[in-house]
């Protein structure tokens, strides 16, 4: 069988080794401590899984960003979903990652898995099948970034086109570029560069980042990066080169998947159903124009309106550093709960719940210097 990793040498030790030497050379020249944020949760996992963090010189630190959808979903969202289940008002359909996220009372949706009111689905397409089998109202928990939103939007486009009206979408959709802007605006973050998310960029293309990174005087280098070892090392290398040359450009190191103009068809589907709106992020707070909400004309499928979810808030468990971790201000091991009271089986904060969360990745694959 065709094995892409072998065929394209994407985990080739000698290529990685050559990039490692170049990274060391440039990092040594720069001299000072450099913080590069991998924005995307999938990057966090890949970096840890391939042991990329163990290959970097001491003065280059990779920090995890807000790109894990579960981690940035506000507590109120979980609470609202729990209320629906407890009051038997709807059947919740969700991706598995959301099950273990504790609401403000510490309770999570996983407690209700047995009674048919909470169902895990693997693809949004299952919604179309299940809505014909379930007689109660159905609420799909739509979370995520530009990567997952188009598929969900296309399913709900079909929902709108049929006359079964038992299916609702509860959105907590986020868009990446506004978050980058907020992270850059906070001087205490001291981010020197971004590894920009490969999958999100497949949809967005290069342009949306330029406004923030190239045209602003606060801009830093941003390199669109793939997910295999060679991709990630290349992304780090190009970021460092820009830092060395005092540049802040958007570069595409993942051209085999990302076209400069992105995927306009996918953006069109999102645009059909959703419009840009202010959005509450866990860790980052309420950010203007950072989310996507259902357009007024399709409010009949909007769970927020139908079930009157008016209040939005975040509730951080005592001592949990998730919010600071999402902003790159702390690393998971700074947290007093990490690896002690907060474990993958019994998570306290969302960063330990999601497999893409920084805490889960650190716990599973090891901290910076083993």
């Amino acid at each position, binding site marked *: *069988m*065709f*094995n*892409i*990793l*072998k065929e394209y040498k994407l*985990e*080739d*030790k000698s290529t*990685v*080794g050559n990039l*490692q030497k170049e990274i060391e050379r440039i990092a040594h020249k720069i001299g000072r401590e450099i913080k590069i944020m991998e924005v995307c949760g999938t990057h966090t996992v890949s970096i*840890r*899984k*391939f*042991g*990329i*963090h*163990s*290959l970097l010189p001491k003065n280059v630190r990779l920090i995890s960003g807000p790109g894990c959808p579960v981690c940035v979903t506000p507590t109120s969202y979980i609470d609202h979903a729990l209320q629906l289940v407890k009051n038997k008002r709807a059947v919740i359909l969700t991706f598995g990652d959301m099950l273990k996220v504790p609401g403000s009372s510490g309770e999570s949706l996983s407690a209700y898995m047995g009674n048919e009111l909470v169902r895990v689905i693997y693809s949004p397409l299952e919604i179309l099948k299940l809505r014909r089998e379930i007689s109660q109202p159905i609420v799909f928990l739509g979370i995520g970034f530009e990567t997952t939103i188009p598929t969900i939007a296309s399913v709900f486009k079909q929902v709108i086109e049929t006359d079964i009206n038992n299916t609702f979408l509860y959105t907590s959709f986020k868009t990446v570029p506004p978050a980058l802007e907020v992270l850059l605006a906070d001087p205490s973050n001291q981010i020197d560069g971004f590894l920009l998310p490969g999958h999100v960029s497949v949809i967005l293309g290069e342009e949306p980042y330029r406004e923030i990174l190239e045209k602003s005087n606060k801009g830093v280098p941003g390199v669109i990066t793939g997910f295999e*070892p*060679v991709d990630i090392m290349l992304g780090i290398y190009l970021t460092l080169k820009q830092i060395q040359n005092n540049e802040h450009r958007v570069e595409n190191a993942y051209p085999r998947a990302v076209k400069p103009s992105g995927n306009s068809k996918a953006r069109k589907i999102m645009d059909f159903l959703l419009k840009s709106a202010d959005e509450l992020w866990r860790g980052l707070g309420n950010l203007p124009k950072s989310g996507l909400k259902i357009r007024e004309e399709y409010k009949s499928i909007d769970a927020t309106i139908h079930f009157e979810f008016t209040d939005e808030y975040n509730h951080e468990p005592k001592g949990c550093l998730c919010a600071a971790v999402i902003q790159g201000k702390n690393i998971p091991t700074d947290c007093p709960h990490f690896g002690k009271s907060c474990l*993958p*089986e019994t998570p306290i904060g969302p960063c330990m719940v999601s497999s893409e969360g920084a805490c889960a990745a650190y*716990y*599973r*694959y*090891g901290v910076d210097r*083993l």
Partner: protein
Amino acid sequence: MKIKNIKLEHGSGGALSRQLTEEIIYPILKNDSYRELSDATIIDYFVKSKKQLAFTTDTYTVDPPAFPGGDIGKLAIYGTCNDLAVSGAKPLFLSMGMVLEEGLSIEKLQSILLSIQEASTHAGIRIITGDTKVVPKGKGGEIYINTSGIGEVVFSHGISPSRIKPGDYIIISNSIGSHGIAVLSARESLSISSKIQSDVAFLYPLCEKLFTLQENLKFLRDATRGGISAVLNEIVSGNNFSIEIDEEEIPISDDILSISNILGLNPLEIANEGVFVAVVSKENKAKEAVNLLKDHPLGKNAAIVGRVTENYPGKVILNTNSGGKRILDFPRGLLLPRIC
């Protein structure tokens, strides 16, 4: 009247129970020891000098009961025999308890019984006692089997993590991952993986070869649920040594690697039914072990994959293909329920 499906009355202890045993089970499994409908079997087992026996039990719930390369019957015999084998014992006798779900077709049951019979003959063991119960439809997954096994300890140096020391070598006996993928493909009708066969096999002949290494063989464990990852972590857990593994040395087929990549599974966590981990001291003995294994079809891809070290006490470290280093943790969550 010929029976086609299992009924609740087959587990009643009455006439139908007897009919099931006499007409379906005995014709396939009857042997000299398993000959009477008595409550217990008396074993004639003479020993001249002091011998040790090993005793183990395991329950099989695999879903579906038949999968590419095997079925629950073969698994129930080999699985329990393998637990004895990796404990240094030669399997001799097995008991077998079956829980059948009402409605199970007799044809399916017969096919499983035949594969039990075939596996027992191959392994040279005898099933000397058994029991069958029936549960109502919807309350069981077609068929569950428990087997307990007795074996005679033939390796006298002891197989125990307490004998492992830094400097020892870690060996994997054959290519990993095929049982988990085969069961998953049967369950989810994954067409991409349909040609993958489970590696379910009788491992005693392979273990027996390693027994000739005498005291240099420190530890054996078949890498079933939780895969290689679980076995290695069990070895280091609570001990003051570490295991360092080279990802590129791990025997794995391109097919399994590709499928696991696509499905997002870590092949080191996937269940095997024909692969074990061995810990052997001294480099020349480790090499000898690999050669002994490679001599047998079930060990043709055996390899030394790592070392026991003092560097990271209590941890398993993976040197990745790309040259990085990371922790290889215990498998988390329920990746594939009812895999064996």
